[in-house]
């Protein structure tokens, strides 16, 4: 019979190991920039199409100070939040109505789903006719483009409420409105929030896009301005800023979602 070796505690993983995925991700981005820098400097990619990353990074300070990027950021954020409030109110209400009235659901669900894939931004001239060259054109396009995922996810969340939870409500003799507010709506909330998150991302993309197209407002207009001036490094720096804002926005929404959904 062989002797059993005494159990030894597993070695503690190094702190670096815990950050490995994040560090690898960062290294990939850095490697991409280095590769682009080399390809541009040796002339494989024309610097008149894509400026070297070092120039883009160098123009960040200029874009922030001279182009009032924070004021523009707040403008875009304000438009996004307004559209966000609107999609939450009208999107959730639309989903609830479609869940409540089956005829409405059968009549509209396919249309709403199809609308989610439609390039609403192309209809910007129509919105300009209705709302003028104003922030409302931008907000309304963001709102219309972002509405379908909120409606569809609200509908999905309410329809997906587990039957046993509904039966628990019935067993406690809940009224229709109690059943909705105390069981169905909280049960559907995580799915509804996924819809709102998707909607806000759709809204942000469309809002920046329309700002660019109609040369009005915040970050989109800044990109348009810089491109018109053929300030390539500045244009790419502004694009990087929009990407950065999107990432921060996305992460903040994830945090809020996690806070709203305690533990599954």
């Amino acid at each position, binding site marked *: 019979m062989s002797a059993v070796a005494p159990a030894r505690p597993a070695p503690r993983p190094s702190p670096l190991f815990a950050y490995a995925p994040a560090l690898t991700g960062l290294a990939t981005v850095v490697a991409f920039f280095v590769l682009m820098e080399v390809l541009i400097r040796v002339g494989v990619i024309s610097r008149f199409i894509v400026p070297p990353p070092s120039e883009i990074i160098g123009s960040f300070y200029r874009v922030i100070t001279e182009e009032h990027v924070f004021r523009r950021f707040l403008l875009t954020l304000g438009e996004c939040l307004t559209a966000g409030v609107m999609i939450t109110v009208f999107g959730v209400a639309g989903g609830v109505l479609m869940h409540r009235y089956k005829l409405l659901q059968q009549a509209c669900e396919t249309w709403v789903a199809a609308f989610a894939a439609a390039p609403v931004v192309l209809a910007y001239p129509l919105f300009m006719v209705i709302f003028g060259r104003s922030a409302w054109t931008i907000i309304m396009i963001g709102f219309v483009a972002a509405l379908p995922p909120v409606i569809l996810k609200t509908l999905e969340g309410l329809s997906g409420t587990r039957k046993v939870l509904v*039966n628990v409500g019935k067993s406690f003799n809940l009224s229709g409105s109690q059943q909705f507010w105390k069981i169905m709506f*909280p049960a559907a909330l995580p799915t509804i929030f996924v819809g709102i998150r998707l909607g806000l991302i759709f809204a942000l993309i469309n809002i920046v896009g329309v700002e660019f197209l109609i040369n009005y407002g915040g970050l989109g207009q800044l990109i348009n301005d810089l491109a018109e001036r053929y300030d390539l490094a500045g244009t790419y720096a502004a694009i990087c800023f929009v990407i950065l804002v999107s990432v921060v926005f996305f992460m903040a929404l994830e945090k809020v979602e996690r806070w709203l959904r*305690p*533990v599954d």
Partner: protein
Amino acid sequence: MLSPSAPKAGGDILVADDIYVRFDTAEGPVTAVDHMSFNVRQGEFLSVIGPSGCGKSTLFNVIGGLLTSHDGTVKVGGETIAGPHKSIGMVFQEESTFPWRNVTDNVAFPLELTGMPKAKRIERARRFIQLVGLAGFENRFPGELSGGMRQRVSLARTLASEPKILLMDEPFAALDEQTRLLLGDKVLQIQQQLKQTTLLITHNITEAVQMSDRILVMTYRPGKLKRIVEIDLPRPRTSEIVGSEAFGRYVAEIWNDLREEASRGMRDEEAHALHEHAS
């Protein structure tokens, strides 16, 4: 030892009279419950046992008032029920805690519906949490608990509404055998402590014999009452009783009744599967 039971005068809290349920399916009408009549006495633990697909859960829904399209009547304290009744508290087979509420808020749910002040309902909820052995987990969310603990939360929530009859549909079906036996102990202890009238729907013979005063044996489709078995085992009981000779005799005798029904159910399922495959 095993004898059909007649209702005892004055002691019936629930009377089911001539319950008949038929469903229309794609393959024609199916009789789920066929003219079943029985009574539940004040303070007793009654189990309904039968093979899978015999209509036990349909019967659970009828008694709980969730299924109203049936013939026959269910009376609680002499009052005919036409829907969910405040005297009947239901514990479901599936996990039914609210994931967005912590343990205390889950258990306090029925008290919240009565408009009880928050401090009072939390205090009362904590009493029931303690009763089911979950003290220390008051602020945990269901996602942080095991399956057995979640079922105890559901049980505490139902008990908090102080029902006259506790109606349970295979509440431990999804749990492993050891947890099931230990939770059986807990339910027995609570039932004996509160003198809670309990009606348990189950397909588990051990569970039924361990806990019940009487067991109603059902036939496979259509679900009819085959016979009523009085369980004459001493109380208070715990899961230790499963090792006794008398316990084994009850299990064997009930299995004799059920084996034929379960075999019929199995043959029926096989024939159905063959038919499905052929078409």
